[in-house]
């Protein structure tokens, strides 16, 4: 659309925003809702798989803020999931704190750790930042193993209470699914709001060119730190959710495997998109179950499926949907 000279800019802008419904993106949300709905109806094993996928969606949403919106790389987000998870576990089992208080304390600890780590680390760029954050993840893992007086090492902590507020406890598969779905929706809404806020625009500017962003008066170091804190906060929440849903935590949960899985999810879902973390987490979690009947060839089929998705949808599922909607709107 080309605005006529008589059209004022706010009018033209609102005309752009309301031209057409983003059908493809809506379809991605609808498919995600259908998958969660299926698990909600049939419960059992499907509900367990989708619950873990939703927890990962929270973790990946944080990674998406840091990597997708701000174009920084971190292999160490599992560290903040571990801090959140272990804080919840220790505070609710040893000190009998309610789950929400334990989760909140974990969030505060994670943000403090992210601030202390991010302040010096985020001066690094590219591969150097990736390696530094990887080291942070590995160090946190070692701490979880070695600090036995608190974490109980490889033995782990069991008997962690389920999610709940006051008298309400999410105990059944379906209750857990509903709680996790609400959390994921709230986070997706928040990420969408951030993306279109002044902060989101500064993320996008830093992602485009740090130097160009600085010439516009954007404090690049502070912007990267805020993005890192947001990612750490969401990682912490996902770690807490995990321990309350499973009722147990050990260091292996927050190992390198978690990071690799999250990277697969964010790329397959669509880096920098709002729906990407959710659809990516669902696909990567469901695919192994789809191929379970193939026995020995299961891993091979899973790998091939992921590669095919990335070949034919290099921007991820939600990325392709977004591009399709943008073409329709043009």
């Amino acid at each position, binding site marked *: 659309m080309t605005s006529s000279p008589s059209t004022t800019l706010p009018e033209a802008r609102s005309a752009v925003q309301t031209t057409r419904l983003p059908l493809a993106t809506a379809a991605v949300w609808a498919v995600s809702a259908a998958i969660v709905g299926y698990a909600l109806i049939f419960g059992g094993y499907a509900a367990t798989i989708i619950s873990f996928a939703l927890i990962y969606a929270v973790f990946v949403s944080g990674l998406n803020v840091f990597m997708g919106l701000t174009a920084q790389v971190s292999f160490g987000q599992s560290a903040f999931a571990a801090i959140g998870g272990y804080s919840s576990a220790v505070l609710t089992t040893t000190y009998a704190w309610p789950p929400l208080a334990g989760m909140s304390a974990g969030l505060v600890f994670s943000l403090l750790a992210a601030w202390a780590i991010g302040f010096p680390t985020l001066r690094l760029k590219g591969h150097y930042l990736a390696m530094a954050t990887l080291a942070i993840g590995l160090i946190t893992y070692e701490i979880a193993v070695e600090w036995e007086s608190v974490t109980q090492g490889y033995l782990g902590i069991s008997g962690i209470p389920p999610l709940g507020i006051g008298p309400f406890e999410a105990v059944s598969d379906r209750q857990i699914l509903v709680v996790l779905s609400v959390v994921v929706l709230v986070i997706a809404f928040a990420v969408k709001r951030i993306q279109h806020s002044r902060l989101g625009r500064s993320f*996008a500017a830093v992602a485009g060119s740090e130097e160009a962003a600085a010439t516009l008066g954007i404090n690049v170091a502070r912007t990267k730190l805020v993005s890192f804190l947001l990612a750490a906060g969401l990682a912490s929440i996902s770690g807490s959710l995990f321990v309350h849903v499973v009722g147990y935590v050990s260091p292996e949960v927050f190992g390198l495997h978690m990071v690799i899985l999250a990277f697969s999810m964010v790329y397959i879902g669509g880096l920098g998109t709002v729906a990407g973390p959710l659809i990516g987490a669902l696909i990567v979690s469901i695919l192994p179950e789809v191929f379970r009947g193939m026995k020995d060839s299961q891993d091979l089929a899973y790998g091939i499926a992921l590669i095919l998705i990335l070949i034919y949808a290099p921007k991820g599922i939600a990325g392709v949907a977004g591009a399709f909607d943008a073409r329709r709107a043009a």
Partner: protein
Amino acid sequence: MNPAATSSSLPEVAQPVLDVRSLSASYGHVEALRSVDISVGRGELVAVLGPNGAGKSTLLRAIMGLIPNHGEVLFQGNALTRRKPGAAATKGVVLVPEGRGIFGPMTVLENLELGAYSVGRDKKEVERRLTSVFGLFPRLKERFKQTAGSMSGGEQQMVAVGRAMMADPKVLLLDEPSLGLAPRVTGEILDTLGALSQSGLPVILVEQKAPLALQLACRAYLLSLGRIVATINPREVKSHDELAQYYFA
């Protein structure tokens, strides 16, 4: 600076808006800028000329605080003390970087709005500045929802200059705005810069195409190996040969 290579009859800058004194900068052990002095006053367009590797872009980046540097940068008589990246921009010293530095995946409108980042949530002020930029570059209004990366080089340069104008600059620095542009488009961009300068905005223009820059500039500094080797009065340069003499002096 070599005084022998400096034009006579160059008027003094009465009240420099931006005064750069003994500015030096290095990349590791390589000294890229050596004690450079330049200044620009209200309504002046000064050109910084020189061959590749002379230190022209480094000079602008050092003024903006984008690279570590020594020396003084006085803006409206006050030192830009917190020489951190972004600090100069918030005071009104705005750079259009080499290669334009536009955000390709964003629309023209989003690029322009980022220029007014320091305005915050004052939507009326942002709209006022947008109207002003669309007055300078009507083509940007026609294409405001197009992604900036899909535009031609000339249009991208308009976005870059427009985005800088959205910051309401008190001094505008431009790094090779003609790079990769057709002569007609270059002329269009430079005409706009000339008009901006005549409206009172101080402009520092780094340019390799010296004849083009000298048409607009009231004063030109010639950089070589990080030093200012000549200060030129463009009115005294009548031919390419005379310009070449400055380059080879």
